[in-house]
């Protein structure tokens, strides 16, 4: 059984953690949060150049390192712990994964090396005003003209949509759902920043007016590709949520050890101690939910991945929110301030909860996949 982390995977975790402790500390998170285009190009390049994080799970033929999902999960967990504000989730979990799954070797060869090298920031534009992550939620249309494909309509709540150099857009075509690549400078594209409750992950609205686009894969075949991408992204988001919850719990425990009331550290009172114990139980259970997804991905088992992904989102979303909320509670008044970082985790938890569909939606997916 290899359901445990290898020494190399542990080392990867150590390296990523110390890198992010330096380059995504609280000061960096707050600085980038306050800026609509908040992203540190130097850090982004270092992530690619020194650690190869953007191309970690990209095959070597496309300029990546060809590692598996357990390794990628380790990175997302650490990114969540550090509240990394870089467009890593959009670029790696959404865009690169979409390209890896599409049936278009040329698109992969053209677009993945830029992602792996850190030259390209990319995202997936799927949701529209309804906020739905399913096929019927896609209304934006593409039509074929003499000059190629043209997109008209709007996408919104697009993660890092303002920063991205490359937009992968899901659109409705005569044959069904199709996938298109659009450059940031394409004609007829308007991008609007959407201020968010959670300032650590940016969103944008994209409006397309007869915007030229490159078809990726065959026309009408994109939905199964997107479905598998979303399952993968769900697992990676779950890993990120686990990391965030772990940091929120660590902060609560550290505080409970030193905060003295009634002449003793508050962590010696069962009211606080038992709350922290329950937080750890939630965290470890969430870890199991996320890791099961990573193992299923590495095993290449699509059926199991679909189940594990829906389970991981249903579970880890709520676990992160619970732990981050309880962390504020353990901190008391100081945890309710803008200056204390507890709210940054809580808000990240709430935004992550709906990023790829709500926990209720993922329960419905799970029920459907289980046939109940």
């Amino acid at each position, binding site marked *: *059984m290899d*359901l445990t982390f290898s020494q190399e995977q542990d080392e990867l975790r150590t390296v990523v953690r110390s890198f992010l402790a330096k380059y995504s500390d609280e000061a960096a998170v707050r600085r980038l949060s306050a800026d609509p285009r908040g992203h540190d190009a130097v850090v982004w390049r270092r992530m690619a150049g020194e650690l190869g994080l953007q191309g970690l799970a990209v095959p070597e033929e496309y300029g990546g390192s060809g590692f598996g999902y357990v390794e990628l999960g380790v990175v997302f967990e650490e990114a969540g712990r550090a509240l990394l504000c870089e467009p890593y989730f959009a670029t790696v979990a959404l865009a690169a994964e979409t390209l890896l799954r599409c049936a278009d070797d040329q698109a992969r060869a053209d677009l993945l090396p830029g992602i792996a090298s850190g030259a390209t920031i990319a995202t997936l534009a799927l949701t529209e005003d309804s906020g739905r992550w399913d096929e019927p939620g896609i209304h934006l249309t593409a039509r074929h003209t003499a000059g190629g494909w043209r997109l008209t309509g709007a996408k919104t709540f697009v993660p890092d949509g303002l920063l991205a150099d490359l937009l992968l857009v899901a659109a409705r075509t005569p044959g069904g759902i199709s996938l298109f690549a659009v450059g940031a400078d394409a004609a007829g594209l308007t991008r609007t920043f959407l201020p968010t409750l959670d300032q650590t992950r940016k969103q944008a609205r994209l409006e397309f007016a007869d915007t030229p686009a490159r078809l990726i894969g065959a026309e009408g075949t994109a939905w199964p590709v997107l479905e598998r991408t979303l399952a993968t992204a769900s697992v990676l988001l779950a890993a990120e949520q686990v990391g965030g919850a772990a940091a929120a719990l660590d902060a609560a*425990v550290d505080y409970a050890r030193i905060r003295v009331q009634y002449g003793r550290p508050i962590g010696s*009172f069962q009211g*606080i101690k038992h709350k922290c114990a329950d937080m750890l139980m939630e965290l*470890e259970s969430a870890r199991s939910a996320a890791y099961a997804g990573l193992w299923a991905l590495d095993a290449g088992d699509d059926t199991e991945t679909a189940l594990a992904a829906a389970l991981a989102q249903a579970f880890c979303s709520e676990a992160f929110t619970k732990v981050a909320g309880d962390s504020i509670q353990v901190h008391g008044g100081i945890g309710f301030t803008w200056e204390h970082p507890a709210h940054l985790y809580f808000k990240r938890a709430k935004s992550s909860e709906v990023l790829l569909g709500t926990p*209720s939606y993922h329960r419905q997916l799970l029920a459907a996949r289980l046939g*109940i």
Partner: protein
Amino acid sequence: MELDFGPAVRDFREELRDWLADHLVGEFAEHRGVGGPTDGAAWEVRLAWDRELSAGGWLGVGWPREYGGRGLGLLEEIVFEYEYARANAPYRATGNALDLLGPMLLKVGGEEQKKRFLPPILAVEELWGQGFSEPGAGSDLASVRTRAERDGEAWVVSGQKVWTSFGMHADWLYVLARTDPDSVRHMGLTMLLLPTDQPGVEIRPIRNLAGQDEFAEVFLSDARTDAGMVVGEVGQGWRTAMATLGIERGTTLLPQQLTFEREAESLIELARERGALDDPMLRRRIVDAWISVRVMRTTNLRTLAELTAGRTPGAQATTAKLYASTRHQRLGHLVQELAGPAGQIVGADYGLDTRQRSFLLSLAETIYGGSSEIQRNIIGEQILGLPKEPRP
């Protein structure tokens, strides 16, 4: 749940599967899945099944050969428990001695004790009961008051023990007693092995809330045992007891896991029969029950993977019991709700069906082996490093 344990144990696994297919038949097969750590149902059949296992050499897979075991490793033990649970064989009546006393003797017992006691355990010739808890020492086990004094070449033991699972069947008890009358709490305690067949030992069954005489209270009045029946050192009984409780081999996780998975499947079947899947509120709870059982599975697999890799299990090994016990109770409540009024009807003499029995017995799971509140203290203090409650 389908696990691949690799080629190293393939032959062992095949041999075991074949054996189970040949021997788990007739009356034994009729008692598939019967019994549990606090469930004494069909005791005689289960005892006979244990003897069948013994004859096949399947008890003590990981115990050294010199004491009647197979001398195999942890991986084989895990494979055994997995295949055993997969075959849904009856819960072993000798579980206490196999899971607790035996490993304790193997860890801290003297050579003579091992030679004397281990083979009869594996031969199902002697049954054991645990004498730890007392009326005044439950969660606070260190306040044990049962005392033992030396009288020549014997220990004389007096006091009261309680919650001894299957105590009525026990030939021997392993007893935590205070040997230093002036000692307090963890100091001055000693672990003694004590035969029950003597005038100074009276064992009375206690009926549990499921109507079963499964556990017992034990009255010791100048009960005697030989001086050599001390496990570990005199005065080090606390350490010996903790060594037992600390033996987390991970092998007990699988049978429970497969039981829970079967219950979750049966829950979905029941919901289907009752048309409950059309009710979005119930459907959500059914999905949550399924999720919780899946989460338990991965948590257990993480622990087993660490154990077989020779690593110290992570925090999940400590939170697993709290999660599993509370979520199993939640599942039981849901089953009862789905069963509706019919689920309230029992057979003659308070005869319970499987669902009713499992639901009622699940109430013990948040109490035995360290209550949920004690678990939270352990997690808080030993895993998270929070300060202990100051003593008054």
